[in-house]
């Protein structure tokens, strides 16, 4: 009878034993185990991402030729407009360089750009992360800012051999020093409480009292550049509402973030020049 009772409780005892071993394990071993687990599963994540790309490729291959011809024509037009935009950008860059020369400003070469494809999105009420398909193999460091065409994406929080985890600015654990466009006084931006499928929002604090925001007078929030992580002038979001704080010194409010944060496929990591 006792043997039978032990036999019935074996799973619980095993669980307790494993938990005990985990608790007693040194922190170094635990950290190593966690990192190893990610490195072990990273190829699966990346493989899934590549299979999905392949799937998309074959889906496109099955389209009728007329559709492809139309798409090709549209693409040609798009390319033409992009080429025009590229020329305009070159002219603008030349103008900026000329003005920098006149003002004797140093050229802006603190970062190199590393474009990376998003392998996985991991959104919850607690964190908002994406996994990108580049890591240590491309020299991406922890803490590097990540951007996309709509502005700031977030910061790299973990770097692995072939992948990296990016904490989005919609996550509560990200804080950025921003400024209201046209102003120079820094304020604090932090990701808000964002349920999984809700439009991303953030909160802004230390907003100067003379910054007026209303439903018809929203303000663009951009990076200040003072914080040492993000270069200045990148879009964080739009301040849609502010209210006076109880201290009478500042206002605090809500920032509407770019909804594309939830469906990113490509991002750019700004790798500080000079860092490994």
């Amino acid at each position, binding site marked *: 009878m006792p043997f039978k009772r032990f036999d019935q409780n074996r799973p619980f005892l095993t669980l307790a034993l494993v938990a005990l071993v985990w608790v007693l394990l040194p922190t170094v071993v635990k950290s190593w185990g966690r990192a190893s687990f990610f490195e072990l599963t990273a190829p699966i994540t990346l493989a899934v991402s590549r299979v999905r790309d392949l799937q998309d490729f074959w889906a496109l291959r099955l389209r009728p030729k007329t559709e492809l011809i139309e798409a090709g024509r549209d693409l040609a037009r798009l390319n033409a407009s992009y080429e025009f935009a590229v020329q305009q950008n070159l002219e603008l860059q030349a103008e900026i360089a000329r003005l920098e020369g006149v003002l004797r400003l140093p050229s802006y070469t603190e970062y190199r750009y590393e474009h990376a494809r998003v392998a996985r999105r991991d959104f919850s009420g607690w964190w908002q992360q994406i996994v990108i398909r580049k890591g240590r193999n491309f020299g991406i460091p922890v803490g590097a800012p990540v951007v996309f065409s709509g502005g700031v994406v977030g910061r790299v929080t973990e770097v692995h051999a072939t992948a990296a985890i990016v904490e989005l600015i919609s996550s509560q*654990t990200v804080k950025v*020093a921003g400024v209201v466009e046209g102003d120079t*006084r*820094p304020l*604090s931006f932090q990701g808000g409480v964002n349920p999984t499928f809700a439009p991303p929002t953030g909160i802004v604090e*230390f907003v100067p009292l003379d910054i007026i925001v209303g439903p018809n007078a929203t303000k663009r929030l951009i990076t200040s550049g003072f914080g040492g*992580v993000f270069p200045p002038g990148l879009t964080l979001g739009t301040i849609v509402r502010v209210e006076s704080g*109880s201290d*009478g010194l500042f206002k605090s409010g809500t920032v509407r973030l770019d909804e594309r944060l939830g469906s990113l496929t490509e991002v750019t990591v700004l790798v500080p020049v000079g860092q490994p």
Partner: protein
Amino acid sequence: MGPHGSAAGERSDSFVESHKGYDPRIILFYFILAALLGTLGAGLAYRQLANVGKYADAERQQNQRRVLFPGPRGNIYDRHGQLLVGNNHRFAVLLHLDELKTELIAEQSRIRRNFVAAVEKKDVPGFSQLRQIARVTLVQRYLDQVNKILGRDEKVNAAELGRHFDRQLLLPYTLVDDLSGPDFARLIEGLPVRSPLEVYASNIRQYPFNGAAAHTLGYVRPDNEVEADGFPGEDLTTFKMKGTSGRDGLEKMFDAQLQGEAGGRIYRVDPTGFKINPPLESRSPKQGKHLVTSLDIDLQLVAEEAIGDQIGAAIAIDVPTGEVLVLASMPNYNLNDWYPRMLPETYRKIQERGAEFNYAVNGRFPPGSTYKILTSIAGLRAGVLKPDESIIYCDSVLRRFNGRFVCYNGREHHQEILLTEAIAQSCDIYYYEAGWRTTPERLAAESRRFHLDVPTGIELPERGKSIIPDPEWKLRERGEKWFPGDTANMSIGQGFVWVSPLQMACFTASVARNEIFTQPTLIHDPDRPRQRHESIGLTPDQRKAILDGMEGCVTHGTAKTINAIAELRIPGINILGKTGTAQIPGKRNVAWFIAFAPRENPQIAMAVALEGDTPGEEYGGGRNAAPIAAAVMKRFFEKRANPGRTVVAPIRSE
């Protein structure tokens, strides 16, 4: 039954106790037991039911702590809504010590292990020493995080930290409190979000116009007198974050209104004093009420700029209401120097310059010839002066009562002079005679009628005492009898007469309204009615004579300077004024000018008093004081003509 059974039965009879039934003696023990149990039960009930409140309170007091933090003070504005005193932020990095409990225990254990491994057991520090070492080590580690981000090398003050741990554990400890905007930004991005470190904005007073109206606005200093009325837990151990209280000027006089409503939180704490989140009670602080003063910062700046490096005061009063438009006392000092703390060197310089003293309200000087207006009123009311009667021949020197009385303004010999010209030319000899005719008692009575002997009642700390002398006063205070020379001095505002510039401004406003009293106020009320007090009691001819004299003073008399300088002229407005130059024996001259304008329906009344900074130097009311009043009045009427153009840019500190 066999032999064994028999044996067993014997054993039973001899060794096994058996119940013999009811024994009445045991009843006693029942009662004793019941009594004991009853006592226990009653004691328990007494403590658990009757004393429940007491023990609940004791438990609450032992397990709960109250934290109070002050509400921001209200702002102070000028009459046009320009911010004169506001709140500004000062970024700091705080460390929430009450979140470090686990880390502290681990740190203490680690340090102890290191000691045990390194030294003999007897040399291992005691518990309190280890605890202090752990505190300093841990807090320094957090400070190093901040240092690394900011590129600084700040060190923890061990003694201060120990005191904070022991007395104010629930209040955050300030690691760095002088962060610039870029420092703030670096910390926002550099510090982990979930950390006991917090970037915090503390509240300090800000004066956008630096030293403008410094004595009127006043300043605040930190204190621990934060009270949260209506917030529960008054009996609990309370930690108070530093608040502020007004120490001078309006900040002091309206401290109760400006003080914000303190916020508070009540936490449950563990036996070692560390808090258990979330708070049981919480209330947000609220900003104090705003104060709208009657000052016009634009005019105030004009007055202060006009006074410049001179010592003295300029006051302007809205004649109908008594609202004070300008209350300038120079030298002044930058009120922002008080924050976050006044440096000893800066304070020494302020004291050396006498910049803390409010000349406008607390300065007392002989009013000089400006007092002749009062002498005229007293003489006219007494019937000893008549507008069309020349009472004496001014030959610049008058010999009377075995004495020699000089007309200090009579180089041109005023000769036969009437009241109007006596005012315009400020003929001393005319007023010596007027004083003798009026008598010192009547002069003193008239002065008291105009409230020159009592504080004005303005909403500022009024120190110093005015003197309106008469024979009785001299006998009482000096033990001497009154001489005709004293009357002569009094009639021209010299000798024992001492009043403040603010009192003379009120007197001027009263004359402008043809009343005997003006209640000055520093609080602006757009609906404030015109003041109405007892009439001076002059006939129209008598009043006309005085006003003609004051107008003549500006057009061709002792204050003609302001009419001669094109920049000071006000098109279409006649200023009515009276100069004065008071000599303080052995000291410096005081240059006076009182004025109001326009003649019909007066709007603004002023008094300017300047103390000469060099003994023996000529310091005249017409030359030195009148231009200041004219500059302020000119700006006043310019603003009246263009009411929309009143925006004044705050002075930016370097």
